[in-house]
């Protein structure tokens, strides 16, 4: 490649509560392990946007920052739509995902309008979901941790997968897939723990710009650790190991 792969971490402080922003570092590292130069670009306002964007990570934030985060994201609505249309992989976690939807209904009846890029909306749940979550998906069985107080309605037609254990969107499915955009409640190091999903996003990013992707040798050691960590959760939950 003539230029490094450019991975944008959007609002890493405002939307990075559970270390979600670390997923950008995971993608960059996997790219490097495959021999591809990669750089994480932290974007706090539209002025920080780089010329080239190959992948985007948006994490989860605090409810008190919803409007502030939305207002900043709204200045980049056109870019987000353009990337989504152009097939740039975008990983959205928790409130980062909710903010790109039609809107977020809060417990007190008020609504935070979303950017309207993704179908569906977030609605309050009777109780917070804080637990391990296990999802079957086309990228393998995903295991992560969820901690949210809203379900997601309107993604039933194209979820990321089906919930084996946990809450997810509610009603049995988890996440949302729209083209190259993936929304999920699996917070924190979802890509490190689930390299199948990470490699799907990375491959999408590289193929788009005419490159092949073959996971590097370094990845396999990390992926063995991830598998052991996933199996540990599976055993605890009484699920078969991989």
């Amino acid at each position, binding site marked *: 490649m003539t230029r490094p792969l450019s991975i944008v971490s959007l609002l890493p402080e405002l939307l990075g*509560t*559970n270390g979600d922003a670390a997923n950008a570092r995971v993608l960059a590292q996997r790219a490097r392990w495959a021999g591809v130069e990669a750089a994480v670009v932290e974007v706090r306002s539209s002025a920080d946007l780089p010329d080239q964007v190959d992948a985007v990570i948006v994490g989860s934030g*605090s409810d008190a920052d919803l409007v502030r985060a939305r207002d900043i994201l709204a200045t980049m609505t056109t870019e987000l739509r353009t990337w989504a249309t152009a097939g740039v992989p975008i990983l959205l976690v928790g409130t980062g995902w909710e903010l790109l939807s039609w809107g977020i209904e809060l417990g007190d009846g008020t609504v935070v309008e979303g950017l309207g890029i993704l179908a569906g909306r977030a609605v309050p749940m009777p109780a917070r979901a804080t637990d391990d979550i296990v999802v079957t998906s086309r990228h393998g069985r995903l295991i992560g*941790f969820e901690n949210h107080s809203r379900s997601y309605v309107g993604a039933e037609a194209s979820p990321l997968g089906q919930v084996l254990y946990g809450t997810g969107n509610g009603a049995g499915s988890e996440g949302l897939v729209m083209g190259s955009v993936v929304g999920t409640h699996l917070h924190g190091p979802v890509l490190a723990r689930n390299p199948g999903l990470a490699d799907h996003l990375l491959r999408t990013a590289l193929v788009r710009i005419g490159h092949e992707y073959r996971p590097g040798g370094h990845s396999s050691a*990390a992926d063995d650790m*991830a598998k052991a960590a996933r199996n540990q959760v599976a055993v605890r939950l009484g699920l078969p190991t991989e």
Partner: protein
Amino acid sequence: MRYAPAILLGRVVRKLARWRKPGGGSAIPGLVVNRIAPGFLPRTLNSFPGGLVIVTGSSGKSTTTKMLVAALRAHGMVVFTNQSTANISQGLTSALLEQASLSGHIAGDIAVLEMDEGHGALISGSLTPRVVALTNVMVDQIDRFHDSDMVAAMLAKIAARATGTVVINADDQYLTALAARLDGTSAIARYGVSAEVLAANPRGLGYSATTTSRLDEGEGMLLTSVHGRRATVSIAGVGYPIGLPARGTHYAVDALTALSTARAALGGRFDPVLAIGAISAIPPVFGRGEIVTVRGRQVEFVLVQNPASFQLNVDSLEPGTDQILIAIGSDVRDPSYFWPVNTSSLGRVRIASGSKAQDIALQLVYDDVVVDRIESDLGLALDEFLALPEPLTGLKTIIFSADSMRRTRAHLGLVTNKEEQE
């Protein structure tokens, strides 16, 4: 003598609990007394002539409380405090039972209590503290306190009970905002670090939000420099050197918090030289930069309790430290917990251990840290780690979560903190 029956019953229960489990069972008598005499705890705590001082916040409570107690005692005050971190109401009641007369009174001039923000918010409604000291708002204990706003709201509830002074960390945006919303019943005392100290911590001090401007001389006590275990504080324009129980800016900030709180509690009697002398004489706190000799080898223990303290501890390790063991246990339920931390400066970790060994190793390798070995069995890991020849740089360093700390101490036959026997 209103509480005499409850106190007597509590003591009998304590005897029974200790008989059943030597050295343990301290929360049970409190549970019993709180059930039959719910007024005992607040009434006793509110009855000290010098009032009640509450230390709360996300991080640094234990160290700050210890330092504050030392500073007050150096001024000749008789202090009641919760020695262990049994900072829930049962534990507190049990601790009070140890010392209360049958009339429910405790000999002492002043009470200093460390309170967990969650439990503190629950019981503070019945308390009338004279001074409330707030350390900081960090994303802490992710499973329980989801976000900073929730933590700040709990702290605001405790601060609103203060009758004299609310002591706040002026570098913490949440606390500054909280202080601005107080109704003016109590005075506000501020403390903060200088621009130089902040600049020396490029990743900040770990607060959920840091204020954009630094405190001016004259607005409160300042931390003006930190070098290893030595720091300088500025009180009313005069600089004083102070010794810390371990390396790291966070310990210096704890000392500053303790000094500000001591001044609020003592008023005109506050003597900076006495207070600083007492704080400088404090031995290292268990598990937080504590240096112990085990099997003939010096080992540094570093306890990480939340992402912020993990980051600060990683940043304050001696550069090039070449023998590191990291053990993360079952107390860290959600592995996301530590991902905000950049561990790359560790360079190489000899062994990743604890029940979350795979998860912490995964994070380390993504940060380009070489992990020699993953060994979930902490006992085995410790034996191997200690058997390694002396390190070339730095001390043998064990970084652990609270659960792994307990297991480490048990495995090595080291005395434990009081609360860990319970």
